[in-house]
């Protein structure tokens, strides 16, 4: 174990190296680039004896990984925003073919208009592609999550691809101290991939062929079952990781000071760190508030959210993306999760941090104030408020 000062992007690169990935394929896009630049250095210097296939598009990057994984190789790629959208078709192929690819995503807004900043529109647009989605909060958690992701993806009961999505710039380009485990520690935690259901040279093997309706639904059900096994499998992996490395992140939904809370805010990614500080302030002021961070968005922690709903009267969800005609993306999922809950908390959806708008303590305090007020707003575009009267187009 050594302590290095790393950006979230370098944390991705170091984790991929420690995982001894065998095939990397990527296409550059801001703000993902430094992940693959660092990996290119590791490969060129011989520190990482991997094949690095530099492709002409993100679509091809993911196809390279799918085909390489189909032969049994451990594969990694990384992208962001438009690149993730271009991969959309292959995201389905990767999960449908049950290839255990791990991908770093730097969550960035989607054009037009052009913007390079943090947002969850890119990854939320991919929530139904059959990938596990993890949203770390710190650079340390990025590194740990990537290592856990390889174990999870390659678990023979799972065999699903995993994306580890970090907020653009807040994590990707901000440095912090990161405990980097030794190669021996990682090797003990993450043994080489055991291929199953792969192509075997010399044998009549086939992946991806067409099927009739009965087999189609059977394959889809198998994929859904694998996703249903993720919470339990990931919990076991996290426990093992914690035992070896001394860090865990509380499963799919990480709660903070939710005991006896009148209102709980649900967040994802980096906003959670600020929100935790705000919870401490408000608790000190005597307000009974808490935080729940959605660490894993796919599979959605519906069970955990229902358990929270059974204890809390008011839930708010902060989203960096939305579903048109509805509310924030995660808020729609929370609404779906709690509709079968015996108790129905009042649900509010806060749109904030969209297109890189900063989510500071004042904004988060306002969300809690709204939640605790007599008549909560329900749906609120927080980012619009300071701009209310400003003309957007000439």
């Amino acid at each position, binding site marked *: 174990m050594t302590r290095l000062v790393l950006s979230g992007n370098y944390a991705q690169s170091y984790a991929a190296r420690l995982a001894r990935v*065998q*095939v990397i*394929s990527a296409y550059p896009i801001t703000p993902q680039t430094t992940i693959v630049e660092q990996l290119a250095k590791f490969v060129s210097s011989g520190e990482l004896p*991997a*094949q690095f*296939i*530099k*492709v*002409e*598009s993100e*679509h*091809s*990057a993911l*196809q*390279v*990984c*799918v*085909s*390489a*994984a*189909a*032969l*049994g*190789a451990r594969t990694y790629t990384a992208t962001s925003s438009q690149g993730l959208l271009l991969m959309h*078709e*292959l995201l389905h*192929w990767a999960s449908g073919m049950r290839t255990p690819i791990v991908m770093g995503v730097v969550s960035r807004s989607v054009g037009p208009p052009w913007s390079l900043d943090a947002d969850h529109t890119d990854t939320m647009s991919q929530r139904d592609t059959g990938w596990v989605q993890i949203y770390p909060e710190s650079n340390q958690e990025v590194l740990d999550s990537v290592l856990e992701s390889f174990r999870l993806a390659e678990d023979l009961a799972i065999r699903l691809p995993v994306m580890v999505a970090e907020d653009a710039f807040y994590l990707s380009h901000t440095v912090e101290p990161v405990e980097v485990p030794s190669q021996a520690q990682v090797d003990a935690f993450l043994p080489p991939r055991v291929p199953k259901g792969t*192509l*075997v*040279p*010399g*044998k*009549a*093997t*086939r*992946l*991806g*062929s*067409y*099927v*009739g309706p009965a*087999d189609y639904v059977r394959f889809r059900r198998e994929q859904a079952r694998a996703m249903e096994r993720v919470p339990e499998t990931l919990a076991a992996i996290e426990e093992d990781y914690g035992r070896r490395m001394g860090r865990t992140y509380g499963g799919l939904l990480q709660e903070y000071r939710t005991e006896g809370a009148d209102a709980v805010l649900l967040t994802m990614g980096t906003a959670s760190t600020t929100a935790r500080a705000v919870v401490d302030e408000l608790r000190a002021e005597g307000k009974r508030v808490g935080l729940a961070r959605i660490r894993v968005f796919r599979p959605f922690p519906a069970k955990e959210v229902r358990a929270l709903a059974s204890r809390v009267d008011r839930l708010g969800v902060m989203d960096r993306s939305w579903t048109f005609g509805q509310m924030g993306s995660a808020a729609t999922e929370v609404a779906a999760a709690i509709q079968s809950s015996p108790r129905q908390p009042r649900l509010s959806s806060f749109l904030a941090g969209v297109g890189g708008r900063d989510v500071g303590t004042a904004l988060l305090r306002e969300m809690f104030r709204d939640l605790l007020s007599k008549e909560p707003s329900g749906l609120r575009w927080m980012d619009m408020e300071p701009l209310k009267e400003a003309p957007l187009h000439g």
Partner: protein
Amino acid sequence: MAKLTLPPVELVRSGHSACPGCGPALAMRYLLKGTGERTVVSVPASCWTIIATGYPTTALRIPMIDTPIEATGASISGLRAALDALHMSDVQVVGFAGDGGTVDIGLQSLSGMLERRTDALYVMYDNEAYMNTGIQRSGSTPLGAWTTTTPVEGMARGKGEPKKDIMGIVLAHHPVYAATLNVAYPEDFLRKAQKAASLKGPRFFHVLAPCPPGWKFASDQTVQIGRLATDTGIFPLYEVENGKLRVTRKLGQLKPVRDYIKVQGRFGHLTDAEIDTVEHEVQASWAALLQREAHP
């Protein structure tokens, strides 16, 4: 030169689901006789998705991966990377894509694979339209051909544009080996397949693969029509190794293109004047090819 005998090994099973007289079925059969049992094939959405049969069967005795239509170049780069990483570098990697999946939607991926010097053989089996979806024009459909999206109705005379020059595009990437092949000439086909298998680096085959339902001819005419394509000069057989072009089926006098055109329903509407235009263009391009061979 002693005539080659086709190796008895059959890596395409008899239970495949190709149409009677299918050119692409012959293409895969001959190709695998050349590349052998240690071959992995990547097939995008195309006729061969269906020919290879559906789950849980497969028509090949070797591994095959299915991919989206535009992804063959990337797929074979991925297969090669994995084989190298897993110390199985002896395995041949073949991409086996249709004409639409190559010259249209798959062109970027093909270009990428050639540019990054992937050690693999990309085979384009050319039946000159999107046949699996029901005969829609592709960039590889020849001028004047009827397809369902280039109808012969009113003033419309079939496809209004000439066939895309895929060999020109590929050769601009300087592959180690590129060749045109015709399922109607299996000895030439096999020799090129064996040669390609002996080389390292990016390799490309443009295979003419006649399609009875798409070209509108009887299913027992595939080989005859395929031969006419070459012998009229419409689809000359040649190879380019390290930039050096060699015509592999020499022709003295070209047969009239009329012999090729008149036996296919897709060209049934062409007038004598239109056929004469094709004849002149074919003769000019044949002469140009011989020039390129003689004066590289």
